[in-house]
């Protein structure tokens, strides 16, 4: 199969749409790293920048949606072209949500800078955010390279993020039980950890879209889920 359409403008349209997804992905990666950094260092100025930049991510999502609608109306894409358009729309939606989570983390930086500090929490959150950011980077690479194997690998790596979240969850619970002054910090930190865990799910969804794009169907196997917090309670473990 030739890579090019006879209508060269069609190729240029598809490339332009995908270039926007890459641009959006780059902004989201930067937002994740920045949000975690602002949190760890209590850097309110950086947090403000992250919050302000979310508008650009939202703007790109809107634009990608419009352009996909246009491509569907004008080109009637079929087969791999159709899958490209469909996956672009879903991925942009995943990225937009991730941008929102990063913004939410940055918003909590202010309160946490004032609240009772929790030892080691900033570092753990940063490592977890870093892990998600790397997964996102690989997912975007997998998208551009049309690499289903790499995408499959990313799905499995989300299990590590879930485990980090489990251990933070228990950690925060312990801190809160030890000293009620930790509650404010731990509540906010828990939302942050949960947000990052959700980001990992969105990256997983992007990876699944890559598999759909390449193979024409979503992966059939259930991926391992390691988020156990739904079953946790505050009673000390027997």
């Amino acid at each position, binding site marked *: 199969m030739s890579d090019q*359409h*006879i*209508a*060269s*403008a*069609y190729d*240029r*349209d598809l490339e*332009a749409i995908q*270039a*926007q997804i890459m*641009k959006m992905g780059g902004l989201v990666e930067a937002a994740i790293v920045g949000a975690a950094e602002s949190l760890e260092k209590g850097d309110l100025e950086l947090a403000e920048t992250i919050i302000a930049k979310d508008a*650009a991510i939202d*703007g*790109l999502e809107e*634009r990608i949606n419009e*352009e996909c*609608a*246009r491509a569907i*109306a*004008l*080109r*009637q894409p079929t087969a791999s072209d159709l899958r490209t358009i469909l996956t672009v729309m879903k991925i942009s939606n995943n990225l937009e949500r991730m941008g929102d989570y990063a913004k939410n983390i940055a918003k909590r930086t202010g309160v946490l800078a004032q609240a009772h500090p929790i030892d080691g929490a900033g570092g753990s959150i940063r490592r977890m955010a870093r892990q998600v950011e790397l997964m996102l980077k690989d997912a975007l690479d997998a998208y551009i390279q049309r690499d289903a194997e790499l995408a499959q690998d990313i799905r499995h790596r989300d299990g590590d993020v879930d485990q980090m979240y489990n251990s933070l969850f228990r950690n925060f619970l312990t801190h809160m039980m030890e000293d009620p002054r930790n509650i404010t910090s731990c509540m906010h930190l828990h939302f942050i950890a949960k947000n990052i865990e959700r980001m990992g799910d969105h990256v997983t969804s992007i990876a699944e879209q890559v598999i759909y794009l390449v193979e024409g169907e979503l992966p059939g196997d259930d991926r391992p889920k390691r988020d156990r917090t739904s079953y946790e309670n505050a009673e000390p473990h027997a």
Partner: protein
Amino acid sequence: MNDMRPLERIVDTETVKISARKCQVFYGDTHAIKDVDVDILDKTVTAFIGPSGCGKSTFLRCLNRMNDTIDVARVEGEIKIDDEDIYDTKVDPVQLRAKVGMVFQKPNPFPKSIYDNVAYGPKIHGLARNKAELDEIVEKALRRGAIWDEVKDRLSEPGTGLSGGQQQRLCIARAVATEPEVLLMDEPCSALDPIATAQVEELMDELRQSYSVVIVTHSMQQAARVSQRTAFFHLGYLVEYDETGTIFTNPKDPRTESYITGRIG
């Protein structure tokens, strides 16, 4: 975000090439075109769509005075190309048609060689001083018609011996040989297979670098693919005229919406 290349299909010129005001066409007592006002842009593909009998071909034929050849047809109102009234008595319709080329539904090569098909127009309009110049014009036109590579070794063979898609591209080459400024195409792909259609469509996209291209098509998908501006005609009226993306994603008039979504025809 402004550093991003805008999507291909956005119109990048605002120069008006053809302007019609209060245009009316009558065939005897039949009022076929009613009060059409339109500004067609230069270096743009403009598509006319609409159900059969809506007047889109009739209006297209006003743009190079092809309706003059029909005895009962009468055109009123004003049509200007480059601000010049083409229905002025001083205008020679033959000269006008050299400036406003036309390609028809069925490929209609002359029963002559491939070379002569293309050379005919430049010859009668005196565009070449000698054989070498004529050769050059023919090659250039065949290249623009995206058919040069396929016919360069058999220029003396009859044009009618080519395949349908090749004949249509030959007719396009013939139309561009006189260096027109406007190219009118009436259903240029309806007799072609999908691949030949795609080649002609790609050609239109190239031609719009230099010309104002106006195409009448029954295929809404084709209008969507090739044009930057789309005009929807219905019962002799120009119902809606807008950027193609807008017409196909968010038309303003309910009649346009009904037509493009397949609810009226």
